[in-house]
């Protein structure tokens, strides 16, 4: 199962997964946006709007503030690069192509790198909105990161390994077995997912109310291709976090067989689960208003505690 060496197969699998993730991430974003619009009885943008957005940004010249230093220039590449790395690392189709290397701490570390760079870039241009966005991002991430760590650790304890593929494998193998612990950690993960992807009730992805922005605030000074990279990186992150959610907490319908029928059924099941997740996200975003900023720690603290419960419960009844 665990490949020790990079064979030709591994490299092929890496390229396949990378291509899959970076090409489908905008589609997932488009799907969520369209679903949200439909739930609000709007027609909304077409589902491929994010691709056309990327194409639009790609053809525009970037403008950088004269206050900006090299951090501002470098950040989009670091953030996008980090997400490309995660796109290979995180198990999307059950098992990661880099199984064995995909430690959850590595994932969190790479995500933290991307976040720190975004925050610095937000501060770098010395615009008031960038600074506000950065300071709020730090406020949120102080609680989101431990939340994600605890949630994943709960799965890791069950799997007996901190490898994401091992965790995913263990969830797939035990499918059908209902565990209150995985329900709790799954719930905590949903909160974390919403916070990480900048969605309601934490951040409003549609907002252009300048004063309430978190994620958008940090991106405000970007334009052209760097902006395309930042958006794309964010969509990839969202895609990967949802993929991880599906693998760890919604294992049903995915088999570990490798015959042709299993490939078809697995792809169908995965697609279905992504659509389900997209519907879930849009329904939550529709029903929940944005929380008061200083109540967010309470929400995220709840998520953290739920995750801790999920970690403790299986050990209580061992």
């Amino acid at each position, binding site marked *: 199962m665990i490949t020790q060496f990079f064979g030709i197969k591994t490299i092929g699998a890496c390229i396949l997964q990378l291509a899959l993730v970076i090409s489908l991430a905008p589609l997932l974003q488009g799907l969520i946006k369209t679903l*949200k619009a439909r*739930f*609000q*009885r*709007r027609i909304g943008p077409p589902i491929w709007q994010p691709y056309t957005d990327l194409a639009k940004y790609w053809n525009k010249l970037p403008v950088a503030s004269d206050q900006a230093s090299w951090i501002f220039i470098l950040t989009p590449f670091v953030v996008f690069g980090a997400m490309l790395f995660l796109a290979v690392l995180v198990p999307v189709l059950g098992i990661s192509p880099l199984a064995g290397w995909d430690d959850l701490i590595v994932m969190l570390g790479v995500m933290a790198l991307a976040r720190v760079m975004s925050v610095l870039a937000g501060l770098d241009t010395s615009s*008031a*909105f960038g*600074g*506000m966005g950065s300071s*709020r991002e730090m406020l949120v991430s102080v609680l989101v990161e431990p939340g994600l760590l605890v949630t994943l650790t709960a799965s890791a304890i069950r799997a007996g390994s901190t490898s994401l593929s091992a965790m995913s494998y263990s969830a797939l193998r035990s499918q059908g077995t209902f565990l209150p612990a995985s329900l709790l950690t799954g719930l905590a993960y949903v909160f974390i997912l919403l916070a990480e992807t900048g969605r*309601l*009730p934490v951040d*409003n992805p*549609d*907002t*252009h*109310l*300048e*004063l*309430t922005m978190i994620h958008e605030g940090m991106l405000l000074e970007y334009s052209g291709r760097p902006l395309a990279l930042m958006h794309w990186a964010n969509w990839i992150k969202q895609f990967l976090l949802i993929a991880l959610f599906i693998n760890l907490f919604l294992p049903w319908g995915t088999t570990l067989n490798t015959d042709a029928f299993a490939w078809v059924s697995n792809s169908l099941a995965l697609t279905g689960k992504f659509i389900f997740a997209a519907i879930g996200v849009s329904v939550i*975003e*529709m*029903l*929940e*208003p*944005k*929380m*008061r*900023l*200083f*109540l967010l720690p309470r929400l995220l603290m709840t998520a953290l505690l739920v995750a801790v419960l999920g970690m403790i419960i299986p050990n209580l009844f061992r």
Partner: protein
Amino acid sequence: MMNNLNIRKNNEYESQVRQFLKDLPITLPCIRSVVFIDANHIQVEVIPSDILQFYNTVKPRFLFILLTMVALDRRREYANWQVRTIWCISETPIFLEVVTNIDQSNTVPELPSITPLFPAANWYEREMYDFFGIVPVGHPDPRRLAMHYHWPNTNFPLRQDENRSTFPPYISNDEYFQNRTTGSGVMEIPVGPIHAGIIEPAHFRFSAVGETIVNLEATFFYTHKGIEKQLEGLSIEQARYIIERTCAACTVANTLAYCQALEQIAGTSLSSRATFLRVIFAELERLYNHIGDTGNLCAGVGFHVGIQEGAALKEILLDLQERLTGSRYLFGVLRLGGVGVDLSPSDLSLLHKTLAEVRKRYQRLIKTMLLNTSVVDRFTGAGIIFQRTARELGAVGVAARACGVDRDVRRDIPYAAYTQFNPIAIPLRISGDVLARLEIRIEEVAESFRLIDAAIQHLPDGAIQVPLGSLPAASSGFSLTESARGAVCHWFLIGPNQTIKRARLRTASYVNWPLVPRAALNNIVPDFPLINKSFELCYSCLDR
């Protein structure tokens, strides 16, 4: 805290006020002359140097509510400047007009500032300097208001010798931001004047410690249209078109104040059908504004169901208005001496049917909003205005009633056919936060539905317009109406041959905008859009 007073309040004061006004010349020797324009309108003349003495004497006696302050450049005719300050006394329908003449021999016309006594006069006096160059001496905050510091202080647009097409040079000047909040940890956040949404320009400069707002400086008047200058010399019919378009969202309220002021000067008595139709149009305007604002409040907290439903309901109403009157925003429905659009029985049944549907959907929207605890949590305790602040700044409308200031022109100084629908329920809250302002709107919407239904039911037959009659030159008058945002008070001076010589348009937003920075204090920066939306004031009403 519902308050269903059907009778006009403070009737007990009325006799005292009348007695006080009768005794004025005896008690106050500084008054030069007293003119009783009618039973409820008294004009006194005070010389500039006695102004403060006058107000100091009368202020403790009664509650003085500033309605408007008008400056006039009368150098050609009378060799002086005139400032007229119109007060409503103790919430009775009795008006005191204080007239001050400043001799033109002074190179710089000066007038003692009354802002230290009546903070509500702040903007009026600053604007008086910007437009006429009359200096309010002793004003605590004499920065420029309408004409920003980029405008040279040698050009005063509303002076008679100032040409309408003059375009003075741009002066590079940053003086407006002199009074900065400084200290360790204070961060300045400049927002606007160009905003990220489709709204009009205003510059908000937050000084925040962490996320808490410790000071907010707001600059408006970026797109000042110069309507008051434009109106000078226009015929009264042409002037109506311009006043209608001062602000689309307050068309009926603004135009109605104009029509009523002129009808009052001419002594026109309207057909009762016209007055009922005026009530219908005025209430329709309130309805679509309040319902749209309910949706906008949801936008302030990112509650998508409410945003969309609010927008949909507003659209239904705008569409209805277009079907009934030919104009989505009710342009052209009011005429001098009546209304310009009659409603046929089929129109009335369409109106009734559509409103019934909107009412049902609106109630469902309200239920959805108020049952969502996260939404209510955002609304509760945000942007509190204390009653004292509201009274000092002379707040009007929803913002005033949300903190216990029980004033509504429709009940207190009834106009059109509002006397026919007593008791008009005027909702009142005391908490003064965003939730209180929302609840006031919700109850006012219910009352508007009732008023329109009642007006449809009792709509009398008759002509919809009567001839206005002639307006004597040099006569002046003003009128109050209640717009969706609060009391509107427009003042007009008639020139020769049925023209407007000078107009002073005072809208509800003009009075209430200074409340917004006060409401924002000690709140957190990300709550400001919500607080701002809960007042829902027009920029266009300022940029008149």
